[in-house]
């Protein structure tokens, strides 16, 4: 995570606030997921776009903004660097999400085949994967990191 945890001027150093943020983000993404499922157009790209925007400006992990530092090991545009604890947590969360995503996609794939033949459920799980795949590692990091010790800065 970044050393200065602020989002739109709000202090996010408290774990409870970060958890509230994660719940809010996924509530909004869940609404989009339901809307996408209930419409029959090919608007899946909107889900991916929403996940990308959430990563870029709220959760972070992939750029200049957001609460999580870029996941890269080397400095990103002279930004903060992940130290060994950051990298260990980053890798652990990505591994956990990787296992979950594999299970989700395999289950979704087979639910679309015989004898199940549930293409709607299969599509729903695939769309869920589009939301969770890019965002869940950052969400888990923000959820699990304890309160930031701010009194020691400086």
């Amino acid at each position, binding site marked *: *995570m970044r050393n200065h945890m602020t989002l739109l001027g709000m202090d996010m150093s408290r774990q409870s606030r970060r958890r509230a943020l994660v719940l809010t983000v996924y509530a909004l993404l869940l609404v989009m997921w339901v809307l996408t499922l209930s419409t029959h157009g090919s608007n899946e790209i909107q889900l991916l776009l929403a996940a990308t925007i959430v990563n870029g400006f709220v959760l972070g992990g992939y750029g200049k903004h957001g609460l999580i530092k870029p996941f890269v090991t080397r400095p990103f545009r002279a930004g*903060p660097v992940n*130290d*060994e*604890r*950051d990298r260990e947590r980053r890798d652990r969360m990505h591994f956990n999400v990787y296992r979950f995503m594999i299970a989700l996609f395999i289950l979704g794939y087979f639910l679309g085949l015989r004898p199940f033949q549930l293409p709607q459920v299969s599509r729903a799980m695939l769309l869920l994967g589009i939301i969770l795949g890019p965002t869940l590692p950052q969400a888990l990091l923000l959820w699990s990191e304890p309160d930031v010790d701010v009194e*020691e800065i400086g």
Partner: protein
Amino acid sequence: MRKDSTRLQTENPRIYNRLAVLRAERGLSRQALAEAVGVNYQTVGFLERGDYNPSLSLAFALSEYFGVPIEAIFSPRPFQPLRTWPSQAS
């Protein structure tokens, strides 16, 4: 003994440390120590509380920075208070 060594290898045991004492003795902030050894200041807090075990390279960096052996900073067993050390008790 065999059971203990197996546990040490598999369960990521807690490593006790004297980082907070060493840092306080030298009047260092967490930020200063973090910059000196190349980690984030939050990581120093996690190290001091025993919530995170350092890598060998970080342990060596801390040892070098404080000028004491690694085993004087880190131990798999709790450090004894100074007043109960054998040299002082006898």
